[in-house]
C-alpha cells in the first residue's frame, strides 16, 4: 500500500546522514566522555562538536547549551530551574493557554507549590496578545514561558515583541521552540529569549534527546536531577552521546536546508489547504491563516469525529493526527482548540496534517482523493449531519 506520512509534528524518521553519525558513536566512539583515556576523549570530542553545532544552529554559544532527554525534560528544567532560583524575587509565572503539556503542567504544578500563575488566553487563531502579556506582568513576575509555534494548530507567536517586553521589565523569558526549529528561523538573539527548548525527534533526529539553551548569566539552576557532574553540573547522568551527536547533525542540516525546504513545504501546504477547503464542505482551517508553520495544516470537519477519520485514513495509508477527545488518553478534547473558542463538538472533528521532507504535491492529490469519500461516508453515518 502507498504510505503517506503527514504527521511530522508528532515525530519524524531519522534521516540517513543523522543515522550515520549516530551509529559511529554507538560502536566506534562509544567511550564515556568523563573517561580520561582514548575512548573517553573520542566521546568528549564528539560531544563538544555536537554542542557547537547545536549552538551554531540557534545563534548561541556552546557553553549555553545543556543536553537533555528531550523537549519535555528541557521544558521542565527551564521552568523549574528559574522558579527555584528566583523565589526570593517573586512568585509569579506567566504562560499561555495553548502551551504543550510539558510547559502547562509544569507551570500548573508550581501553582500548587506557592507560585501564582497567569495563563494568558488566545484569540480564535491561537495567538497570544502582546498587550495581554504587558498587562499581566507585575513586579512579582519572574518568568514568562510562551511557545514559539504551536504543535496543534501551527500558529507562530510574536516571541520577539513579547521577549522585548519581558526584558524591559527584567523578567526572564523561555520559549518552547520544539515545533519551530527547522521550520522557521530560530535565533536566540533575534528572538531575545533567555531560555529555549528544542527536541531531536521533530527535526529528523532521534527521540530521547533535546537541548535547553540557557543564556549566559541567566538566573537558573539545575533542580530536577542529582548525580554526577556532567554538563558542567547542569544535568547529571552519563551523556547520551549518540543521541547528542545526532541532534547536532540534525540541527546543522535543518538550518542548512531551512529556506529551501520552507518554500517547498509552503507550496505543498497551501495547495493542501486550498483543496480541502474547496473539495470538502463544512470544514474550518484552525490556527492562523498566514502566521503559521510552513508545513502545518489543521482543520475541523463538522459533524464527524477525529479518530474515525484517522482510522479511515490509515486504511488508505495516510498517517495524520487529531486533537479529538477520542484519541487522547484523557478523553478531553484538545485544550488548544478549546482555548481558541472552538466548541467541543467541532474540536472533536479536528485533523492535523504536518508535512515533511518526503512529502510531495502528489501526496496532496492522494490525500484529497481519499479524504473526500471518507468524509462523505462518515457524515452519512452521523446523527449530527443536517442533510
Amino acid at each position, binding site marked *: 500500500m502507498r504510505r503517506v506520512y503527514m504527521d511530522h509534528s508528532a515525530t519524524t524518521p531519522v534521516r540517513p546522514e543523522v543515522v550515520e553519525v549516530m551509529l559511529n558513536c554507538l560502536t566506534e566512539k562509544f567511550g564515556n566522555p568523563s573517561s580520561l583515556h582514548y575512548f573517553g576523549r573520542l566521546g568528549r570530542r564528539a560531544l563538544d562538536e555536537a554542542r557547537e553545532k547545536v549552538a551554531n544552529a540557534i545563534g548561541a554559544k556552546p557553553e549555553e547549551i545543556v543536553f537533555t532527554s528531550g523537549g519535555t525534560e528541557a521544558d521542565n528544567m527551564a521552568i523549574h530551574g528559574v522558579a527555584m532560583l528566583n523565589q526570593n524575587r517573586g512568585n509569579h509565572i506567566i504562560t499561555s493557554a495553548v502551551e504543550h503539556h510539558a510547559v502547562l503542567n509544569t507551570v500548573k504544578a508550581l501553582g500548587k507549590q506557592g507560585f501564582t500563575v497567569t495563563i494568558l488566553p488566545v484569540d480564535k487563531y491561537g495567538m497570544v496578545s502582546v498587550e495581554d502579556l504587558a498587562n499581566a506582568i507585575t513586579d512579582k513576575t519572574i518568568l514568562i514561558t510562551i511557545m514559539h509555534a504551536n504543535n496543534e494548530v501551527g500558529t507562530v507567536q510574536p516571541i520577539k515583541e513579547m521577549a522585548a517586553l519581558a526584558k524591559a521589565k527584567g523578567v526572564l523569558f523561555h520559549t518552547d521552540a520544539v515545533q519551530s526549529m527547522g521550520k522557521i528561523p530560530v535565533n536566540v538573539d533575534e528572538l531575545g529569549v533567555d531560555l529555549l527548548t528544542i527536541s531531536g525527534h521533530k527535526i529528523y533526529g532521534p527521540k530521547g534527546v533535546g537541548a535547553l539553551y540557557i543564556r549566559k548569566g541567566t538566573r537558573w539552576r539545575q533542580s530536577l536531577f542529582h548525580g554526577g557532574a556532567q554538563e558542567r553540573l547542569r544535568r547529571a547522568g552519563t551523556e547520551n552521546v549518540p543521541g547528542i551527536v545526532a541532534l547536532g547533525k540534525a540541527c546543522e542540516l535543518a538550518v542548512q536546508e531551512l529556506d529551501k525546504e520552507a518554500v517547498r513545504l509552503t507550496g505543498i501546504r497551501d495547495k493542501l489547504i486550498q483543496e480541502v477547503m474547496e473539495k470538502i464542505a463544512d470544514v474550518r482551517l484552525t490556527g492562523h491563516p498566514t502566521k503559521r508553520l510552513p508545513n502545518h495544516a489543521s482543520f475541523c470537519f463538522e459533524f464527524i469525529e477525529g479518530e*474515525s477519520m484517522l*482510522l479511515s485514513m490509515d486504511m488508505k495509508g495516510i498517517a495524520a493526527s487529531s486533537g479529538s*477527545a*477520542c484519541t487522547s488518553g484523557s*478523553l478531553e478534547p484538545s485544550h488548544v482548540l478549546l482555548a481558541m473558542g472552538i466548541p*467541543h463538538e467541532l474540536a*472533536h472533528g479536528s485533523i492535523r496534517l504536518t508535512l515533511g521532507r518526503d512529502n510531495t504535491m502528489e501526496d496532496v492529490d492522494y490525500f484529497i482523493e481519499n479524504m473526500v469519500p471518507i468524509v462523505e461516508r462518515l457524515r452519512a453515518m452521523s*446523527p449530527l449531519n443536517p442533510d
Partner: protein
Amino acid sequence: MYSEKVMDHFENPRNVGEIADADGVGLVGNPTCGDIMKIYLKIDNDVITDIKFKTFGCGAAIATSSMVTEMAKGKTLDEALRLSNQSVAEALDGLPPQKMHCSNLAADALHAAIDNYREKQK
C-alpha cells in the same frame, strides 16, 4: 490497538441509517467524551424486526453501534434489554481499556430506544 472484529465493524458497519417511521428512537451522548449515538427501532409483537443507527464518535463507538444492532435484531425487547456493554465489547473480541466506555454508548442508545417505544405504548 483495535481487534480485527472492531475494525471489520468500523469498516463495514451493519445497519447504518435511519428508519423514517420508527417505533422507538434513542439518542444518547457519552458523558466522558461527548460522542453521540442514535438508534431507530421497528418493533412487531415485542420483537425487534428492524434496527438502524447513526453515530458521531470514535472507531469503537461506530463498531459497537454496528455490533449492538446486529445483536439486537430479532430479539424480544426483554432479551434486548439484557444486552450489556460488556457483552457488546466481548462480541467484538474486546476493546482497549481506555475505550471500554465507548461500548456504554451503544448499549445505552439501544435501551433508550426501547424505553422510548414503551413510553409511547403507555
